[in-house]
């Protein structure tokens, strides 16, 4: 029997997210033009909001499900296993963490009326409630509405339709949509002046859930690689019988299992240090698994339509979300 990866957080939430993501991928595979894909993603995003996932981490008295980190992680794992091209983590996990203590906005978020992109990376300045500067490649819901913007320790809410705010959309390498924001004195609402701790917590949560998504994608990718090698013949022999390829796959598997261990430790104890080590290792292990999957798929690995390629690009992208390996190393060394 071919290998089937076991989820870290099995259950209904995982399965629902997985089914959703698989269906999404099937539909998107038929569309090539970025504009057509963006339109389809908008439809899918509405369906996702219908499922109430934006409220997963929102307290019940704000209209949410009052779920735990593990509930959210189960969704991320299911979604990640098929490399869902929607901003589940940014909107449904990072945003509510930033909005903790803002019951009205949390209610809006849970209801799907507030769909903010999240700008934590710097590059924006604030003066008397007006924001200026650029933020590039910010993950976004298909139809950009608002942005939660961190300016040092302060947190702002910006309406993207306001004067002084402009944006362009791109597709990331993993097919998700992003914004390049150009702000020129755009008026924004100050939500909190001293939100440093919650901004850091939100970024860490993003990093952790990126790892969860990537681990899930790696499991699927390894399964697909094994299936491919079992099925594909060369010089009259199944590729799966070549020891060099078998050992490569064993190395991919061990790298994946090792990363899974780190992620499980960070899920159990979601402290900065645990998350930083998991994300650091994702940079190494994820890159290795993605590159080798492409390699052992041979020429097929070069094609964009191959599901394995899509997963590989998702894994490569995950490293760059919420701080890459060098950012993680820098903070670990600074803390030593």
């Amino acid at each position, binding site marked *: 029997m071919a290998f089937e990866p076991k989820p870290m957080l099995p259950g209904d939430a995982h399965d629902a997210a997985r089914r959703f993501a698989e269906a999404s991928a099937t539909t998107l595979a038929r569309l090539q033009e970025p504009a057509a894909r963006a339109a389809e993603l908008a439809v899918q995003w509405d369906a996702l909001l219908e499922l109430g996932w934006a409220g997963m981490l929102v307290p019940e008295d704000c209209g949410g499900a009052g779920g735990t980190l593990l509930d959210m992680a189960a969704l991320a794992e299911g979604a990640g296993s098929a490399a869902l091209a929607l901003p589940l983590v940014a909107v449904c996990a990072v945003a509510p963490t930033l909005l903790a203590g803002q019951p009205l906005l949390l209610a809006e978020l849970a209801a799907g009326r507030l769909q903010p992109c999240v700008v934590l990376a710097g590059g924006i300045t604030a003066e008397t409630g007006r924001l200026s500067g650029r933020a590039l*490649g910010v*993950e976004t819901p298909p139809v950009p509405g608002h942005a939660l913007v961190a300016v040092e320790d302060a947190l702002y809410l910006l309406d993207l339709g306001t004067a002084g705010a402009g944006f362009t959309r791109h597709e990331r390498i993993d097919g998700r949509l*992003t914004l390049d924001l150009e702000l020129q004195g755009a008026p924004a609402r100050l939500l909190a002046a001293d939100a440093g701790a919650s901004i850091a917590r939100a970024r860490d949560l993003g990093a952790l859930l990126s790892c969860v998504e990537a681990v899930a994608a790696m499991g699927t990718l390894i399964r697909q690689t094994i299936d491919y090698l079992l099925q594909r013949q060369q010089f009259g022999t199944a590729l799966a019988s070549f020891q060099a390829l078998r050992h490569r796959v064993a190395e991919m598997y061990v790298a994946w299992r090792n990363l899974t261990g780190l992620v499980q430790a960070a899920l159990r104890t979601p402290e900065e240090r645990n998350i930083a080590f998991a994300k650091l290792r994702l940079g190494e292990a994820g890159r290795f698994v993605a590159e080798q999957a492409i390699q052992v798929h*041979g020429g097929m690995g070069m094609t964009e339509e191959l599901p394995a390629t899509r997963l590989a690009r998702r894994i490569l992208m995950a490293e760059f979300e919420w701080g890459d390996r060098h950012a993680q190393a820098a903070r670990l060394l600074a803390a030593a």
Partner: protein
Amino acid sequence: MDETAELAAFRAEVRDFALTRCPPEIRAVVAANGKLGRKQWAPWQRILHAHGWGAPSWPKEHGGTGWDQRRRHIFDEVLAECDCPPQYHHGLRHLGPVLIAFGTEEQKARFLPGILSGEDWWCQGYSEPGAGSDLASLKTRAVREGEEYVVTGQKLWTSHAHEADWMYTLVRTNAEVKRQEGITLLLIPLDAPGIRVREVRTIDGWHHVNEVFLDAVRVPVANRIGEENKGWTYGKFLLDRERLGGANVAPAFRFLDRCRALVARELAAPGQALKREQLEYRLLLAEAELRGARELGRAAVEAVMAGEPLGLMPSELKLSTADTVQRIGAIALDAVGERVASRFRPVDASGPNAEVEDIEWVQNFMYLRAKTIFGGSNEVQKNVVAKQLFGM
């Protein structure tokens, strides 16, 4: 003048030509690690041809330069050092020598001039779905009907088919014999009825390879090279002549230089010192490997000059450079990935940043995956090396 001085003078002459005669807009594409197409290659070939340098690897009587392997190597190196495109290979390096060796007089007269001038654009129809490195398992059939072959099948990974005029194609004319013995080499115009070219979308986001579907395409027997069922011989002749292709490491050095400049520019802030030093160290390791490969390349050229067998040198060169170039691509990705991989393709046609600066580094990272896959994967190269080393 002794040989050393002559070679130095030749190097200077090529450099001067490259810097003054290759159009800046073409060199700019190379300098930006961009994707080259017929749009850049064809005019460049015209310029080279007009100067008498259209075919460095051909004998003089067919319009070549008659240069020895040393001069050809210098020519290739200097072009790369000056950010000129390498010459488009399908006509000049692949088909041309086969035509010269095995073509009829009519075929030579018909096809060589167009290759030299850059007027006819060629692509190679070898690979097929499911064949991979096992080329001899190809399935595209050609059935003789009078003075025509009727060709049906499918080719894959056909680079430049979307901008080419012709495809030199291996087809199966006999399925009853040993796999290598029933293959024939045909020249097929891409505008022939029954041909459909479909883009293969690759992970880098560039359009360079295609599927080519052939549905009862009628090809005159006059377009057959050499004998029927001997195509494998000609294909092998072609591949053998390509074994020195890896000797020119100069493009990899230019890629390294650009990556080093990128790292210095992208990570100039004091807060990025740790990351910058990591990447600089990795660049040094990569440079060391390229320097070793460059010397192996020189040794290979000298071996050809001395009439010695190349032995494992082509595999050594490929295994010494393919990984290394990928690692350089990874260093660049590490430098700019966070900023650029998130902006791969524009969705909205207008607005700021519709053209993403430095995006070619992400495209190159993806594109470079092919380095260890195509042209004999790393695994195949290691099999070749091991077989020779172990004598079994």
